[in-house]
């Protein structure tokens, strides 16, 4: 059997399949379906310093081959996380990564410091790309100087693996990737959702309470793949590919484009077993093509 293990900085992943923040709850919701330990890693739901109620309902709309969401980082805040969620997930025998969100640099720092205390959290994913919050969020991810600054400050207080999650809503994502690499990011993950919108023509109302929301799913895959390809060529740190990955073939495409690992998002809703099936599918692909190690195809696009 082919060796699927990959490294993202200090993080050892038994395979390149992780699950994307906000689409996998805290992992425990999947215990009924499969053994979460089989995954390369899980990124928990976006956490903020303080409790957030999130946006009003309706928070989602289906679109062609995709969906819009406007959850708005609903979560109970980091104290609740440390007390009630961390105990449930710290026993997982997979990489547990917390998705960190702030509306100011100070918030990012305070939150990171709290997460840093949790021994079994192996890395943080710095979310500078949430399109669904009024303050902060995507503003950090769409400005190169701001992205650099938040990375630099968080780096100062965090020694474990720091992944920065990039926004696709930019003119030049490779530039931002290089910027955060320079400021000490150990890895970049991309993409977060695209800012989109849906209207109900009959009622003449927006489909989301917030008017705009984040587009995810297969619809965005071609753009996400292009961005991963561009970023992989621009940086030396490992790239984590995200965006419309539904099956092993999609995952292989991102890996060929240069991703060291992938995150499965919206696919978890369509098929709760999508991520774990993907591992098997990647194994089959490698075997069929006579590769003994996943690394042999990373960035292996034939030009």
């Amino acid at each position, binding site marked *: 059997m082919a060796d699927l293990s990959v490294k993202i900085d200090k993080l050892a992943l038994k395979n390149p399949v992780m699950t994307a923040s*906000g*689409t*996998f*709850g805290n992992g425990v*919701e*999947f215990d*009924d*379906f499969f053994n979460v330990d089989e995954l390369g890693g899980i990124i928990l*739901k976006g956490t903020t310093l303080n409790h957030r*109620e*999130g946006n*009003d*309902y*309706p*928070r*989602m*709309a*289906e*679109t*062609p*081959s*995709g*969906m819009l*969401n406007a*959850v708005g980082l*609903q979560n109970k805040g980091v104290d609740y996380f440390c007390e009630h969620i961390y105990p449930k997930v710290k026993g997982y025998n997979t990489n547990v990564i917390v998705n960190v969100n702030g509306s100011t640099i100070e918030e990012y720092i305070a939150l990171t410091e709290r997460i840093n205390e949790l021994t079994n959290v192996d890395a943080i994913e710095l979310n500078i790309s949430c399109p669904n919050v009024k303050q902060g969020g995507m503003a950090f991810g769409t400005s190169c100087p701001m992205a650099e600054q938040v990375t630099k400050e968080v780096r100062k207080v965090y020694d474990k693996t720091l992944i920065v999650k990039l926004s696709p809503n930019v003119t030049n994502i490779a530039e931002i990737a290089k910027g955060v690499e320079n400021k000490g990011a150990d890895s970049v993950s991309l993409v977060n959702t695209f800012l989109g919108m849906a209207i109900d023509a009959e009622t003449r109302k927006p489909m989301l309470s917030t008017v705009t929301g984040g587009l995810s*799913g*297969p619809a965005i895959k071609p753009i996400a793949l292009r961005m991963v390809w561009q970023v992989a060529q621009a940086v030396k740190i490992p790239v984590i590919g995200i965006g419309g990955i539904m099956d092993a073939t999609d995952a292989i495409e991102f890996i060929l484009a240069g991703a060291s690992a992938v995150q499965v998002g*919206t696919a*978890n*809703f*369509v*098929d*709760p*077993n999508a991520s774990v099936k993907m591992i098997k599918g990647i194994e089959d692909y490698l075997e069929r093509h006579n590769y003994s190690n996943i690394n042999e195809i990373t960035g292996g696009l034939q030009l």
Partner: protein
Amino acid sequence: MKKEVSNLLVTKNIALNHDNFLIELKADSPVEQILPGQFVNVKVEKSPNTFLRRPFSVHDTYPSTNSFSILVKAVGDGTEALSVIKEGQRLDVVFPLGNGFKLPSKGESILLIGGGVGIAPIMHLARISKEKGADVHILLGARTLNDHILIDEFKRYGTVHLTTDDGSLGTKGFVTNHPVIDGKIRFNRYQCCGPDPMMQAVARKAKQNETECEVSLENMMACGFGVCLCCVTKTNEGNKCVCTEGPVFNINNLEWQI
């Protein structure tokens, strides 16, 4: 009962009228543990505009054949694709999901209220409630005579009361216009599933009559099992997911302006 994703066999698809279809699915595991009010999330194949799964209440369970049914009203591409599914085909289903209705104690009088395709979970609830020894009354509302379905089946589990908007069957008007709701019987509980305005009207009646009341919500869902946080409703403990902390809520917990 553990949630599962299963490829279930379609053993029946009966057109009850032009837009309501009763689809029976055979499961691998015992279905006794599915609770009245729980729902399932169905992947619709061959429907290009149906990307996400579609949620449907469990209409009833048939433990002797390990089967359960869903009642599908064709309102869009996904439900239309389901309406033409054939016996022998398979459906990829995540189930059982959600919390379910409160079950009555022996001797309680309960009024189960269904409007439109909201009657779907009422059958299962009525049957189990009768088995528990409750005095079951079932109040069903529809637009016209022709929209009323499954009345004989409901009669097996309780006293059936009917309304139609146009008066073509039963009491004319909405379910809340039916005399049973303000009548002699002091119900221990109203349990209701239907369009939001109907459920709110029932909730108002419940307040007036100081009767406990549960409603089953149908918020738009992406995942159905508590991970996307898209399906929330406001409660007095903040936003709650309808798919895991509902779909059934006691109206006292909801922030409805009624």
